[in-house]
């Protein structure tokens, strides 16, 4: 029985240990944030990588999410004559949930995995050791700029996703499904509060923290050559995605 419990509990122990190590990395990163030198160029470079280079992906996913949502909600609401609620439902869903979550998932796939792969390769080719020997702290030089960039850029990307999602939904609702344009917009203004948008952006910043922290953690603790880098990359995407969904539930429960 004890052996069974040991066997069954091993993944749980591993998960808790992993979370503990990630928290230690976060604390270390925070402590390095306030110590010079402040490498703004490195942070801006990461902001470009995380933010600017992700705009295309976010535009496409945001627009089609809004479009499909308009299509689905229209058919549902039509059953009881509530088509006028399509715009507001779509806008609430985009700003509160789908904008932040889908943006975070897309950026996890594009950026979180790249962070794990890049830092993992640096680890196995001794480039991180080289930084240490040159008196440059790898957490301050590699991890901190990535985390700051992701926390700052995820809300920006989410605003873009929210906007194009609503525009996409408007296009489908008004032009294809013939919902009245004035009602579509009026209901959005009527029902969606600024708090809905801001809370969505806070979520996005939190997801940015998760995906960058996990990507960096998996990268700098990579072991085992090319195979290890591959493993770290996959694990970072899986773990980040799981943590994004779990934290989304709790953030929603607290915020709304």
């Amino acid at each position: 029985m004890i052996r069974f419990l040991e066997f069954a509990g091993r993944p749980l122990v591993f998960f808790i240990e992993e979370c503990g190590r990630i928290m230690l990395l976060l604390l270390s990163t925070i402590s390095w944030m306030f110590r010079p030198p402040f490498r703004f160029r490195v942070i801006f470079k990461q902001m470009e990588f995380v933010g600017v280079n992700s705009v295309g992906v976010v535009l496409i996913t945001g627009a089609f999410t809004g479009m499909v949502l308009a299509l689905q909600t229209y058919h549902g609401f039509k059953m009881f004559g509530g088509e006028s609620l399509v715009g507001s439902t779509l806008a609430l869903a985009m700003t509160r949930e789908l904008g932040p979550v889908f943006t975070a998932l897309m950026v996890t796939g594009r950026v979180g995995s790249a962070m794990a792969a890049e830092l993992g390769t640096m680890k196995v080719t001794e480039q991180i050791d080289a930084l240490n020997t040159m008196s440059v702290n790898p957490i301050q030089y590699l991890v901190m700029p990535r985390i700051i960039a992701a926390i700052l850029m995820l809300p920006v990307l989410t605003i873009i996703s929210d906007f194009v999602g609503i525009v996409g939904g408007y296009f489908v609702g008004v032009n294809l499904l013939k919902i009245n344009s004035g009602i579509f917009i009026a209901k959005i203004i009527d029902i969606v509060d600024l708090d809905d948008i801001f809370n969505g952006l806070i979520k996005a910043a939190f997801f940015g923290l998760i995906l960058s922290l996990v990507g960096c953690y998996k990268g700098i603790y990579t072991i085992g050559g090319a195979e290890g880098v591959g493993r770290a990359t996959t694990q970072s995407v899986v773990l980040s995605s799981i943590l994004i969904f779990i934290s989304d539930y709790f953030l929603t429960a607290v915020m709304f």
Partner: protein
Amino acid sequence: MIKLIKISKSFNSQKVLDELDLNIDPEKITVIIGQSGGGKSVLLKHIIGLIRPDSGQIIIDKIDITNLNDKKLNEVRKKFGMLFQDAALFDSMTVGENVAFPLNEHTRLSRKEINKIVNEKLNLVGLENVIHKMPSELSGGMRKRVGLARAIALDPKIVLFDEPTTGLDPIMRESVDELIVATQKRTKATFVIISHDIESTFTIAHKVAMLYQGKIVAVGTPDEIRSSNNSFVKRFIRDLRI
């Protein structure tokens, strides 16, 4: 200059260094030889504080670095340059940016002055016209040369080498050996090299230390090591030559 006193280190119950003692003379080339997997790299990483010992003391320039915090350790590390086995050049930077990296990080020199030093160091290691190339465009020997240029960019007092000739063809190996000797003569820095290449060792070393089973079992000039009566040393040299 560098003193290792009774250094022990184990990984998962496997003892890699066992109360190891070693004194490294300033402004000389000391080569630490030993079998592959015998703990040479671990020893080198102890000297620069990348790994902390389980017990013992590491003294660098009269400073005990064994339990220094990161900030103080970083200050001591500014005395060091290190050439890694595969050079460990930053993939995302050009050759010039790699060599300039320590200068950008630790000096307030202007871009023009940094460029001048970068060119000087690259010339010193016999490389010209590669400043804008990426590390992936270079051969193994060239990467090591760039790694050496980066290691000596800040004119460190101590330069560590992790197997500098491993993976090179005989001609390139000879050329890297010559470069190490010439650079040491010119910079007057303390060079510590780990190697299992016995031919190279006898060519470049002022002093040879032999690592076996976690301890330094013999220390001396190349001639002293060659003529040693110690049965292990004899067997070791003979086996490695084969």
